[in-house]
Protein backbone atom coordinates (compact mmCIF):
# COMPACT_ATOMS: atom_id res chain seq x y z
CA UNK A 1 0.00 0.00 0.00
CA UNK A 2 2.77 2.41 0.95
CA UNK A 3 4.37 1.64 -2.42
CA UNK A 4 1.25 2.58 -4.30
CA UNK A 5 1.01 5.94 -2.52
CA UNK A 6 4.70 6.55 -3.17
CA UNK A 7 4.31 5.65 -6.83
CA UNK A 8 1.24 7.87 -7.16
CA UNK A 9 3.10 10.83 -5.67
CA UNK A 10 6.18 10.15 -7.81
CA UNK A 11 4.29 9.88 -11.10
CA UNK A 12 2.15 12.93 -10.26
CA UNK A 13 5.27 14.94 -9.48
CA UNK A 14 6.96 13.84 -12.71
CA UNK A 15 3.90 14.65 -14.81
CA UNK A 16 3.47 18.09 -13.28
CA UNK A 17 7.19 18.87 -13.23
CA UNK A 18 7.83 17.53 -16.72
CA UNK A 19 5.06 19.56 -18.29
CA UNK A 20 4.91 22.70 -16.16
CA UNK A 21 8.50 23.58 -15.24
CA UNK A 22 9.60 26.48 -17.41
CA UNK A 23 12.44 26.39 -19.90
CA UNK A 24 14.62 29.48 -19.58
CA UNK A 25 17.87 30.75 -21.06
CA UNK A 26 19.88 30.76 -17.83
CA UNK A 27 18.37 28.47 -15.20
CA UNK A 28 18.78 29.78 -11.65
CA UNK A 29 16.11 28.19 -9.47
CA UNK A 30 15.97 24.44 -9.04
CA UNK A 31 12.76 24.14 -11.04
CA UNK A 32 14.02 25.77 -14.23
CA UNK A 33 15.23 23.78 -17.23
CA UNK A 34 17.97 24.99 -19.57
CA UNK A 35 17.21 25.84 -23.17
CA UNK A 36 18.72 23.12 -25.38
CA UNK A 37 19.45 24.51 -28.86
CA UNK A 38 17.36 22.81 -31.51
CA UNK A 39 14.87 21.36 -29.04
CA UNK A 40 13.47 24.31 -27.06
CA UNK A 41 10.03 23.48 -25.63
CA UNK A 42 10.03 20.11 -27.42
CA UNK A 43 12.63 18.89 -24.94
CA UNK A 44 9.93 18.25 -22.36
CA UNK A 45 8.62 15.14 -24.10
CA UNK A 46 11.93 13.46 -23.22
CA UNK A 47 10.49 12.75 -19.74
CA UNK A 48 7.76 10.60 -21.27
CA UNK A 49 9.23 9.32 -24.54
CA UNK A 50 12.49 7.89 -23.25
CA UNK A 51 10.92 5.93 -20.32
CA UNK A 52 8.39 4.29 -22.65
CA UNK A 53 11.15 3.25 -25.07
CA UNK A 54 13.21 2.02 -22.12
CA UNK A 55 10.28 -0.02 -20.79
CA UNK A 56 9.67 -1.53 -24.22
CA UNK A 57 13.12 -3.05 -24.03
CA UNK A 58 12.87 -3.96 -20.32
CA UNK A 59 9.54 -5.69 -20.92
CA UNK A 60 11.03 -7.62 -23.82
CA UNK A 61 14.02 -8.58 -21.67
CA UNK A 62 11.76 -9.81 -18.85
CA UNK A 63 9.61 -11.69 -21.35
CA UNK A 64 12.70 -13.41 -22.74
CA UNK A 65 14.07 -14.21 -19.28
CA UNK A 66 10.83 -15.90 -18.28
CA UNK A 67 10.55 -17.64 -21.68
CA UNK A 68 14.00 -19.04 -21.05
CA UNK A 69 12.92 -20.09 -17.56
CA UNK A 70 9.88 -21.80 -19.02
CA UNK A 71 12.02 -23.76 -21.47
CA UNK A 72 14.19 -24.85 -18.56
CA UNK A 73 11.53 -25.78 -15.97
CA UNK A 74 8.35 -26.23 -18.06
CA UNK A 75 6.37 -24.33 -15.45
CA UNK A 76 3.32 -22.68 -17.04
CA UNK A 77 3.43 -19.83 -14.49
CA UNK A 78 6.65 -18.66 -16.12
CA UNK A 79 4.90 -18.59 -19.47
CA UNK A 80 2.12 -16.47 -17.95
CA UNK A 81 4.78 -14.05 -16.68
CA UNK A 82 6.45 -13.89 -20.08
CA UNK A 83 3.11 -13.33 -21.80
CA UNK A 84 2.06 -10.60 -19.35
CA UNK A 85 5.38 -8.84 -19.88
CA UNK A 86 5.02 -9.05 -23.66
CA UNK A 87 1.53 -7.53 -23.44
CA UNK A 88 2.85 -4.60 -21.43
CA UNK A 89 5.81 -4.32 -23.78
CA UNK A 90 3.43 -4.00 -26.73
CA UNK A 91 1.56 -1.16 -24.98
CA UNK A 92 4.77 0.70 -24.16
CA UNK A 93 6.09 0.04 -27.67
CA UNK A 94 3.02 1.70 -29.19
CA UNK A 95 3.35 4.59 -26.73
CA UNK A 96 7.04 5.01 -27.58
CA UNK A 97 6.29 4.94 -31.30
CA UNK A 98 3.51 7.52 -30.99
CA UNK A 99 5.35 9.89 -28.64
CA UNK A 100 8.44 9.51 -30.80
CA UNK A 101 6.50 10.27 -33.98
CA UNK A 102 4.93 13.37 -32.38
CA UNK A 103 8.33 14.57 -31.22
CA UNK A 104 9.82 13.85 -34.64
CA UNK A 105 7.10 15.93 -36.32
CA UNK A 106 8.05 19.00 -34.31
CA UNK A 107 11.80 18.45 -34.10
CA UNK A 108 12.62 16.99 -37.52
CA UNK A 109 9.57 17.98 -39.56
CA UNK A 110 8.05 14.58 -40.32
CA UNK A 111 6.25 11.95 -38.30
CA UNK A 112 8.34 9.16 -39.74
CA UNK A 113 11.68 9.18 -41.53
CA UNK A 114 13.19 5.67 -41.08
CA UNK A 115 15.83 6.85 -38.69
CA UNK A 116 17.67 3.72 -37.36
CA UNK A 117 15.96 3.98 -33.98
CA UNK A 118 12.59 4.35 -35.65
CA UNK A 119 13.44 1.26 -37.67
CA UNK A 120 14.31 -0.66 -34.54
CA UNK A 121 11.17 0.34 -32.63
CA UNK A 122 9.20 -0.68 -35.72
CA UNK A 123 11.00 -4.05 -35.71
CA UNK A 124 10.15 -4.48 -32.01
CA UNK A 125 6.52 -3.70 -32.80
CA UNK A 126 6.62 -6.37 -35.53
CA UNK A 127 8.22 -8.87 -33.15
CA UNK A 128 5.53 -8.30 -30.52
CA UNK A 129 2.84 -8.55 -33.18
CA UNK A 130 4.30 -11.77 -34.55
CA UNK A 131 4.52 -13.21 -31.03
CA UNK A 132 0.81 -12.58 -30.41
CA UNK A 133 -0.10 -13.92 -33.87
CA UNK A 134 1.87 -17.09 -33.09
CA UNK A 135 0.26 -17.45 -29.67
CA UNK A 136 -3.26 -17.07 -30.99
CA UNK A 137 -2.69 -19.68 -33.70
CA UNK A 138 -1.94 -22.56 -31.31
CA UNK A 139 -4.60 -24.33 -29.28
CA UNK A 140 -2.61 -26.54 -26.95
CA UNK A 141 -1.37 -24.72 -23.87
CA UNK A 142 2.03 -26.39 -23.55
CA UNK A 143 2.80 -26.20 -27.25
CA UNK A 144 1.85 -22.54 -27.31
CA UNK A 145 4.08 -21.83 -24.34
CA UNK A 146 7.04 -23.70 -25.83
CA UNK A 147 6.83 -22.26 -29.32
CA UNK A 148 6.27 -18.69 -28.19
CA UNK A 149 9.15 -19.03 -25.72
CA UNK A 150 11.43 -20.27 -28.48
CA UNK A 151 10.32 -17.43 -30.72
CA UNK A 152 10.88 -14.75 -28.12
CA UNK A 153 14.40 -16.02 -27.36
CA UNK A 154 15.10 -16.17 -31.09
CA UNK A 155 13.80 -12.64 -31.58
CA UNK A 156 15.72 -11.34 -28.59
CA UNK A 157 19.10 -12.25 -30.05
CA UNK A 158 18.40 -9.94 -33.00
CA UNK A 159 17.76 -6.97 -30.70
CA UNK A 160 21.48 -6.10 -30.21
CA UNK A 161 21.71 -5.68 -33.98
CA UNK A 162 18.95 -3.09 -33.89
CA UNK A 163 19.93 -1.26 -30.73
CA UNK A 164 23.70 -1.24 -30.91
CA UNK A 165 24.74 -1.85 -34.51
CA UNK A 166 22.16 -0.31 -36.86
CA UNK A 167 22.33 3.20 -35.33
CA UNK A 168 26.11 3.13 -35.76
CA UNK A 169 26.10 2.34 -39.48
CA UNK A 170 22.97 4.05 -40.73
CA UNK A 171 22.66 7.79 -41.00
CA UNK A 172 20.22 8.95 -38.39
CA UNK A 173 18.62 11.85 -36.62
CA UNK A 174 18.76 10.64 -33.02
CA UNK A 175 21.74 11.66 -30.90
CA UNK A 176 24.56 9.14 -31.12
CA UNK A 177 24.06 8.21 -34.80
CA UNK A 178 26.81 7.45 -37.29
CA UNK A 179 26.91 10.96 -38.71
CA UNK A 180 26.27 12.80 -35.44
CA UNK A 181 28.87 15.50 -35.08
CA UNK A 182 27.18 17.26 -32.17
CA UNK A 183 27.91 16.88 -28.51
CA UNK A 184 26.54 13.35 -28.40
CA UNK A 185 23.77 12.10 -26.15
CA UNK A 186 21.57 14.88 -24.83
CA UNK A 187 21.41 13.31 -21.40
CA UNK A 188 25.06 13.64 -20.52
CA UNK A 189 26.00 16.99 -21.87
CA UNK A 190 23.13 19.35 -22.33
CA UNK A 191 20.80 18.71 -19.41
CA UNK A 192 21.31 20.57 -16.18
CA UNK A 193 21.04 18.79 -12.85
CA UNK A 194 17.34 19.53 -12.28
CA UNK A 195 16.46 18.21 -15.72
CA UNK A 196 18.55 15.11 -15.14
CA UNK A 197 16.87 14.61 -11.76
CA UNK A 198 13.38 14.69 -13.27
CA UNK A 199 14.57 12.50 -16.14
CA UNK A 200 15.96 9.77 -13.90
CA UNK A 201 13.03 10.05 -11.46
CA UNK A 202 10.78 9.53 -14.46
CA UNK A 203 12.73 6.45 -15.53
CA UNK A 204 12.50 5.04 -11.98
CA UNK A 205 8.81 5.91 -11.65
CA UNK A 206 7.88 4.31 -14.96
CA UNK A 207 9.96 1.22 -14.15
CA UNK A 208 8.14 0.75 -10.82
CA UNK A 209 4.84 1.30 -12.64
CA UNK A 210 5.80 -1.41 -15.13
CA UNK A 211 6.66 -3.93 -12.42
CA UNK A 212 3.42 -3.22 -10.60
CA UNK A 213 1.31 -3.57 -13.74
CA UNK A 214 3.21 -6.70 -14.66
CA UNK A 215 2.55 -8.28 -11.27
CA UNK A 216 -1.19 -7.62 -11.47
CA UNK A 217 -1.29 -8.83 -15.05
CA UNK A 218 0.50 -12.15 -14.59
CA UNK A 219 -1.35 -12.90 -11.35
CA UNK A 220 -4.66 -12.40 -13.13
CA UNK A 221 -3.55 -14.66 -16.00
CA UNK A 222 -2.50 -17.40 -13.58
CA UNK A 223 -5.76 -17.14 -11.60
CA UNK A 224 -7.82 -17.18 -14.79
CA UNK A 225 -6.06 -20.32 -15.99
CA UNK A 226 -6.64 -21.99 -12.61
CA UNK A 227 -10.33 -21.06 -12.67
CA UNK A 228 -10.69 -22.40 -16.21
CA UNK A 229 -9.12 -25.71 -15.21
CA UNK A 230 -11.33 -25.83 -12.12
CA UNK A 231 -14.45 -25.27 -14.24
CA UNK A 232 -13.43 -27.97 -16.72
CA UNK A 233 -12.76 -30.52 -14.02
CA UNK A 234 -16.12 -29.64 -12.48
Amino acid at each position, binding site marked *: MIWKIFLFLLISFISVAGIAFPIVENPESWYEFPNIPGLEENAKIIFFHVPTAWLTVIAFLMSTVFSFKY*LKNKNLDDDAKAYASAQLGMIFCILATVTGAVWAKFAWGAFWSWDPRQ*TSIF*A*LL*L*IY*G*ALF*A*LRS*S*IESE*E*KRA*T*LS*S*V*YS*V*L*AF*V*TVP*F*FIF*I*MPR*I*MKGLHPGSADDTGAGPVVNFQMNSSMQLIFFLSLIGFTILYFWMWQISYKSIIIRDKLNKHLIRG
Partner: protein
Amino acid sequence: MIAKAIALFKKDYHSELRTRYAINSLAMFIIVAISVILFAVGQEKLSEGLAGGLFWVVIFFTAMSGLARAFVSEEERGTSLTLQLIAAPSTVFSGKLLFNIILVFCMNTVIALLYAALFESFVIKNFSLFVFAFVIGNIGLAVSSTIIAAIIAKAGAKGTLYPVLSFPILLPLILTSVQLTLFALDGTSIEDAKFELAIVVSYDVVMLTVSYMLFDFIWKD
Protein backbone atom coordinates in the same frame (compact mmCIF):
# COMPACT_ATOMS: atom_id res chain seq x y z
CA MET B 1 26.20 -37.41 -36.87
CA ILE B 2 27.44 -35.75 -40.05
CA ALA B 3 26.85 -38.97 -42.00
CA LYS B 4 23.28 -39.13 -40.65
CA ALA B 5 22.68 -35.49 -41.49
CA ILE B 6 23.88 -36.11 -45.04
CA ALA B 7 21.63 -39.18 -45.26
CA LEU B 8 18.70 -37.00 -44.18
CA PHE B 9 19.65 -34.44 -46.79
CA LYS B 10 19.74 -37.18 -49.45
CA LYS B 11 16.29 -38.35 -48.39
CA ASP B 12 14.93 -34.81 -48.83
CA TYR B 13 16.79 -34.46 -52.10
CA HIS B 14 15.36 -37.67 -53.54
CA SER B 15 11.82 -37.00 -52.40
CA GLU B 16 12.16 -33.52 -53.87
CA LEU B 17 13.36 -34.92 -57.19
CA ARG B 18 10.42 -37.32 -57.23
CA THR B 19 7.75 -34.62 -56.97
CA ARG B 20 9.78 -31.50 -57.92
CA TYR B 21 7.20 -29.54 -55.93
CA ALA B 22 9.56 -27.02 -54.30
CA ILE B 23 11.73 -26.49 -57.36
CA ASN B 24 8.82 -25.99 -59.74
CA SER B 25 6.86 -23.71 -57.46
CA LEU B 26 9.97 -21.68 -56.58
CA ALA B 27 10.94 -21.28 -60.23
CA MET B 28 7.44 -20.15 -61.13
CA PHE B 29 7.32 -17.84 -58.12
CA ILE B 30 10.57 -16.17 -59.16
CA ILE B 31 9.27 -15.60 -62.69
CA VAL B 32 5.95 -14.26 -61.44
CA ALA B 33 7.56 -11.95 -58.87
CA ILE B 34 10.08 -10.54 -61.32
CA SER B 35 7.48 -10.01 -64.02
CA VAL B 36 5.24 -8.19 -61.53
CA ILE B 37 8.16 -5.87 -60.82
CA LEU B 38 8.86 -5.46 -64.54
CA PHE B 39 5.23 -4.56 -65.23
CA ALA B 40 5.17 -2.17 -62.29
CA VAL B 41 8.33 -0.46 -63.49
CA GLY B 42 7.13 -0.23 -67.09
CA GLN B 43 9.23 2.14 -69.15
CA GLU B 44 10.76 3.90 -66.14
CA LYS B 45 14.47 3.63 -65.67
CA LEU B 46 15.28 2.13 -62.29
CA SER B 47 17.98 3.74 -60.19
CA GLU B 48 20.74 1.50 -58.84
CA GLY B 49 19.46 1.85 -55.28
CA LEU B 50 15.96 0.78 -56.23
CA ALA B 51 17.21 -2.21 -58.25
CA GLY B 52 19.33 -3.40 -55.29
CA GLY B 53 16.36 -3.04 -52.94
CA LEU B 54 13.93 -4.82 -55.27
CA PHE B 55 16.47 -7.64 -55.63
CA TRP B 56 16.07 -8.37 -51.91
CA VAL B 57 12.29 -8.00 -52.06
CA VAL B 58 12.14 -10.86 -54.56
CA ILE B 59 14.63 -12.92 -52.54
CA PHE B 60 12.66 -12.45 -49.32
CA PHE B 61 9.28 -13.38 -50.75
CA THR B 62 10.65 -16.32 -52.73
CA ALA B 63 12.29 -17.66 -49.58
CA MET B 64 9.03 -17.20 -47.69
CA SER B 65 7.10 -19.11 -50.33
CA GLY B 66 9.43 -22.09 -50.56
CA LEU B 67 11.53 -22.68 -47.47
CA ALA B 68 8.76 -23.67 -45.06
CA ARG B 69 8.39 -26.94 -46.97
CA ALA B 70 11.36 -28.55 -45.19
CA PHE B 71 9.49 -29.14 -41.95
CA VAL B 72 5.89 -28.69 -43.04
CA SER B 73 6.18 -31.66 -45.43
CA GLU B 74 7.31 -33.91 -42.55
CA GLU B 75 4.27 -32.89 -40.51
CA GLU B 76 1.93 -33.33 -43.48
CA ARG B 77 3.20 -36.81 -44.25
CA GLY B 78 3.19 -37.68 -40.56
CA THR B 79 6.84 -38.72 -40.70
CA SER B 80 8.14 -36.37 -38.03
CA LEU B 81 7.63 -38.97 -35.26
CA THR B 82 9.75 -41.50 -37.16
CA LEU B 83 12.44 -38.86 -37.61
CA GLN B 84 12.35 -38.17 -33.89
CA LEU B 85 13.01 -41.85 -33.25
CA ILE B 86 15.89 -42.36 -35.64
CA ALA B 87 17.89 -39.15 -35.26
CA ALA B 88 18.96 -36.63 -32.66
CA PRO B 89 17.36 -33.17 -33.01
CA SER B 90 20.62 -31.50 -34.01
CA THR B 91 21.10 -34.08 -36.78
CA VAL B 92 17.63 -33.41 -38.14
CA PHE B 93 18.29 -29.71 -38.07
CA SER B 94 21.63 -30.10 -39.86
CA GLY B 95 20.04 -32.17 -42.62
CA LYS B 96 17.18 -29.73 -43.16
CA LEU B 97 19.53 -26.77 -42.98
CA LEU B 98 21.81 -28.27 -45.63
CA PHE B 99 18.83 -28.80 -47.92
CA ASN B 100 17.57 -25.25 -47.40
CA ILE B 101 21.03 -23.72 -47.88
CA ILE B 102 21.36 -25.45 -51.24
CA LEU B 103 17.83 -24.45 -52.20
CA VAL B 104 18.51 -20.81 -51.26
CA PHE B 105 21.74 -20.79 -53.25
CA CYS B 106 20.06 -22.17 -56.40
CA MET B 107 17.10 -19.83 -56.04
CA ASN B 108 19.16 -16.70 -55.42
CA THR B 109 21.61 -17.47 -58.21
CA VAL B 110 18.68 -17.70 -60.63
CA ILE B 111 17.25 -14.43 -59.27
CA ALA B 112 20.63 -12.69 -59.61
CA LEU B 113 21.09 -13.94 -63.18
CA LEU B 114 17.59 -12.85 -64.15
CA TYR B 115 18.14 -9.45 -62.56
CA ALA B 116 21.42 -8.99 -64.39
CA ALA B 117 19.71 -9.91 -67.66
CA LEU B 118 16.48 -7.93 -67.24
CA PHE B 119 17.40 -4.76 -65.36
CA GLU B 120 19.77 -2.36 -67.06
CA SER B 121 20.76 -0.65 -63.82
CA PHE B 122 21.63 -3.93 -62.09
CA VAL B 123 25.28 -3.95 -63.13
CA ILE B 124 27.69 -5.31 -60.55
CA LYS B 125 30.87 -3.27 -60.46
CA ASN B 126 32.60 -5.07 -57.59
CA PHE B 127 32.02 -8.75 -58.30
CA SER B 128 34.05 -10.25 -55.43
CA LEU B 129 32.21 -8.13 -52.84
CA PHE B 130 28.88 -9.17 -54.36
CA VAL B 131 29.80 -12.87 -54.20
CA PHE B 132 31.07 -12.60 -50.63
CA ALA B 133 27.95 -10.72 -49.45
CA PHE B 134 25.73 -13.08 -51.46
CA VAL B 135 27.23 -16.22 -49.84
CA ILE B 136 27.07 -15.04 -46.22
CA GLY B 137 23.66 -13.42 -46.79
CA ASN B 138 22.27 -16.66 -48.21
CA ILE B 139 23.55 -18.68 -45.26
CA GLY B 140 21.91 -16.28 -42.80
CA LEU B 141 18.66 -16.36 -44.77
CA ALA B 142 18.67 -20.17 -44.82
CA VAL B 143 19.43 -20.51 -41.09
CA SER B 144 16.71 -18.11 -39.93
CA SER B 145 14.08 -19.43 -42.30
CA THR B 146 14.82 -23.04 -41.33
CA ILE B 147 14.33 -22.45 -37.61
CA ILE B 148 11.16 -20.42 -38.21
CA ALA B 149 9.94 -23.18 -40.54
CA ALA B 150 10.33 -25.63 -37.65
CA ILE B 151 8.20 -23.38 -35.41
CA ILE B 152 5.58 -22.97 -38.15
CA ALA B 153 5.39 -26.71 -38.79
CA LYS B 154 4.68 -27.36 -35.11
CA ALA B 155 2.16 -24.52 -34.98
CA GLY B 156 0.04 -26.34 -37.57
CA ALA B 157 1.56 -24.97 -40.79
CA LYS B 158 -0.18 -21.63 -40.93
CA GLY B 159 0.96 -20.29 -44.29
CA THR B 160 0.45 -16.61 -43.64
CA LEU B 161 2.25 -16.79 -40.32
CA TYR B 162 5.59 -17.69 -41.90
CA PRO B 163 6.54 -14.30 -43.40
CA VAL B 164 5.07 -12.56 -40.33
CA LEU B 165 7.35 -14.47 -37.97
CA SER B 166 10.39 -14.39 -40.25
CA PHE B 167 10.44 -10.74 -41.20
CA PRO B 168 11.48 -9.22 -37.85
CA ILE B 169 14.14 -11.91 -37.41
CA LEU B 170 15.48 -11.38 -40.93
CA LEU B 171 15.31 -7.59 -40.83
CA PRO B 172 18.90 -6.93 -39.65
CA LEU B 173 20.16 -9.32 -42.33
CA ILE B 174 18.03 -7.81 -45.08
CA LEU B 175 18.89 -4.21 -44.21
CA THR B 176 22.61 -4.95 -44.18
CA SER B 177 22.45 -7.10 -47.31
CA VAL B 178 20.60 -4.38 -49.23
CA GLN B 179 23.37 -2.02 -48.19
CA LEU B 180 26.03 -4.51 -49.33
CA THR B 181 24.28 -5.05 -52.66
CA LEU B 182 24.28 -1.28 -53.17
CA PHE B 183 28.00 -1.22 -52.38
CA ALA B 184 28.61 -3.95 -54.96
CA LEU B 185 26.58 -1.99 -57.55
CA ASP B 186 28.47 1.20 -56.69
CA GLY B 187 31.83 -0.50 -56.91
CA THR B 188 32.81 0.14 -53.29
CA SER B 189 35.90 -1.83 -52.25
CA ILE B 190 35.70 -4.74 -49.80
CA GLU B 191 37.86 -2.74 -47.39
CA ASP B 192 35.17 -0.03 -47.11
CA ALA B 193 32.38 -2.57 -46.69
CA LYS B 194 34.07 -4.69 -44.05
CA PHE B 195 31.92 -3.41 -41.18
CA GLU B 196 28.71 -4.45 -42.98
CA LEU B 197 30.27 -7.78 -43.90
CA ALA B 198 31.21 -8.31 -40.24
CA ILE B 199 27.59 -7.64 -39.22
CA VAL B 200 26.28 -10.28 -41.61
CA VAL B 201 28.91 -12.81 -40.49
CA SER B 202 28.08 -12.19 -36.83
CA TYR B 203 24.37 -12.47 -37.61
CA ASP B 204 25.04 -15.87 -39.25
CA VAL B 205 27.03 -17.09 -36.25
CA VAL B 206 24.50 -15.84 -33.69
CA MET B 207 21.51 -17.30 -35.51
CA LEU B 208 23.25 -20.62 -36.15
CA THR B 209 24.17 -21.02 -32.47
CA VAL B 210 20.75 -20.01 -31.16
CA SER B 211 18.99 -22.24 -33.70
CA TYR B 212 20.94 -25.31 -32.66
CA MET B 213 20.27 -24.52 -29.00
CA LEU B 214 16.55 -23.93 -29.44
CA PHE B 215 15.74 -26.62 -31.98
CA ASP B 216 15.66 -29.33 -29.27
CA PHE B 217 12.72 -27.58 -27.59
CA ILE B 218 10.76 -27.23 -30.81
CA TRP B 219 11.39 -30.77 -32.03
CA LYS B 220 10.64 -32.72 -28.87
CA ASP B 221 7.05 -32.29 -27.80
